[in-house]
């Protein structure tokens, strides 16, 4: 939902970043306002996932230039857990498995840490249990997930649902979902997408990082950006995604070369 008067949640200017000395992001500019859904598309290796990780503060990436304001604050100056507490959420492409740590203990700790970081009240285990079970219904998740270790032995679809469950619990102001559709069958995709749709409000924003158009059949973006070689080379509305689906990325790259 585009409302040019809405408050700016994320403002990226001239962002460059490298990993192990290799430059990956070569100048990204992007503004995301409350209520908007952005899709970032692009071929493999174009830097989409790197952008997501840099925004969340992954230690392997070094920011070499540019600024990022998150609700007016200098995002790059914050430790990654403080970014999460401030309301930035990253849905991982490959959520890590943590054997031995139960999902319920992990979710409660994350929830309470974020709550207290926002000056809100923490929930005791019983209250939290009620809250999380209610939220899980939204994603058609069985309560047995709570007793299993975090992502350990989860199928691809279960991992992605677990990511969206965390998104629902942490109520982020900006959710960046990195290839959330990869590895999902059509039913899981529908459930995950409906969960995300449910969580989008006029006060928050969502950035979908995806290689394929498929997810965008279920979650309608306001803007579609195409990345290539560490830059956003085209921005348009939803129709761009359909065109990419039909024609691939090459025509765009050629167009860019021509221009």
């Amino acid at each position, binding site marked *: 939902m585009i409302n040019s008067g809405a408050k700016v949640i994320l403002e990226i200017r001239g962002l460059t970043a490298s990993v192990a000395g290799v430059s990956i992001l070569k100048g990204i500019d992007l503004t995301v306002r409350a209520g908007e859904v952005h899709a970032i598309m692009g071929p493999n290796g174009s830097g989409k996932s790197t952008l997501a990780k840099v925004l969340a*503060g992954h230690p392997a990436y070094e920011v070499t230039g540019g600024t990022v304001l998150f609700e007016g604050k200098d995002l790059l100056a914050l430790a990654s857990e403080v970014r999460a507490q401030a309301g930035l959420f990253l849905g991982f492409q490959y959520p890590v498995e943590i*054997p031995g740590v139960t999902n319920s203990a992990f979710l409660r700790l994350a929830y309470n840490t974020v709550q207290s970081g926002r000056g809100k009240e923490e929930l005791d285990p019983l209250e939290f249990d009620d809250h999380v079970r209610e939220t899980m219904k939204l994603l058609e998740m069985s309560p047995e997930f709570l007793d299993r270790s975090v992502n350990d032995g989860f199928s691809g679809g279960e991992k992605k649902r677990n990511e969206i469950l965390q998104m629902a619990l942490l109520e982020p102001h900006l959710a960046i979902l990195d290839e959330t559709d990869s590895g999902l069958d059509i039913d899981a995709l529908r459930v995950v997408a409906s969960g995300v749709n449910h969580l989008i409000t006029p006060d928050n924003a969502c950035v979908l990082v995806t290689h394929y158009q498929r997810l965008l059949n279920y979650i309608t973006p306001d803007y579609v950006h195409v990345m290539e070689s560490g830059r956003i080379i085209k921005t348009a509305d939803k129709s761009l995604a359909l065109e990419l689906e039909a024609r691939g990325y090459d025509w765009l790259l050629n167009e860019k070369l021509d221009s």
Partner: protein
Amino acid sequence: MSTSTIEQLVNQPYKHGFVTDIESDTAAKGLSEQTIRFISAKKAEPDWLLQFRLKAYQHWLTLTAPEWPNVNYPAIDFQNISYYSAPKQKKTLKSMDEVDPELLKTFEKLGVPMNERAALAGVAVDVIFDSVSVATTYKQKLADVGIIFCSISEAVREHPELVKKYMGSVVPVKDNFYAALNSAVFTDGSFCFIPKGVKCPMELSTYFRINTQDSGQFERTLIIAEERASVSYLEGCTAPKFDTNQLHAAVVELVALDYADIKYSTVQNWYAGDEKGVGGIYNFVTKRGLCKGVHSRISWTQVETGSAITWKYPSCVLRGDHSVGEFYSVALTNHKQQADTGTKMIHIGKNTRSTIVSKGISAGGSNNSYRGLVRIAPTASGARNYSQCDSMLIGQQCSANTFPYIEVRNPTSQVEHEATTSKIGEDQLFYFQQRGIGAEEAVSMIINGFCKDVFQQLPMEFAVEATKLLGLKLEGSVG
């Protein structure tokens, strides 16, 4: 950021390093038949015990130190060790008040306010300071139900028939190099006897400490649970910081008769040496339990975080039909520590069962090996074993090894072994951080999750202590 965070997390200085100044009655360095006669005379022992020692010594002379463990250290000069060191006792102590205040202060520094702790927690503490017991509490309460809990020296005086019957029956004097050495020169240790049908009303606990520099430590522990008796025994260790290595070669023997149940828990946090591997304890221990009776059960739980070198295999000989052996272990190594630890489950009786759960955590430049033997004898029909050995690596200079030996001679048995490795690295920490959880809390949560199956086996008080210990070793200095 996170690589250095992990480094910080695992680089926690040893908090228990100090030397207590107490006059010691120390034997001259060196080992000979003379030394053994000196120890035996000092302790006014009966002749049979002197003969036991001499037999062990004669055999020890024919042995060489084992080389098969996956550990490296300079050869030990056994002539450069003092084999006897006892705090001077002015009189026999009847209560805690009479204990040397210096001693009590030591325990306070360790965070073990003994009398309070003993009273509040209902724990009887048989305090071992260097090699001689100086105080025993709750003795009377235990005596009321017929339990004997005292030092080995006292047991030799008061209950020679029991000591004579059981000492060396589980770990023979000729068992191995260090057991033979211990049998020759042991100075003191704990003795515990639970008579038929008695459930010990409290957790029995002993705090071991090594104090005098260069004094080898050779404790001897003997626990006997008669028919249908049960006991839970706790052993906790911390040691002062020294630059020269100290040898510790204890022997622990457990005997469980029909339907008896012995649970033996250890939290070990001896000085591990500094980051460069200078100093630290050599911990070469022989621990073995004999499930002699039918339906008996022996359970070992250990949390090993200290010592420069650990060489230790608490074992169960499952002789009684339907007997049960268990081994739950967490071994954490950091810096230059080396640990080669595990267990042996020897199944002899029918329908015997054993469970092994081993969790190894390697950090820094350390080397952590699990070595375990499961042997099913031809007689052990219906025997079952399940082993799970997991390793976690933190950093790229450490190593984790798993050496299970499985020897099966009976077709009706079932043996299962599983092992996995995992890590705490950048991606794991980032995942937690992205959910708002800081690195320190993340490491603590991952480690406790990893070790959960073992911690669940510890008595309540120890579980808390163990969690704190791992915390001490792996967190606390996040910047």
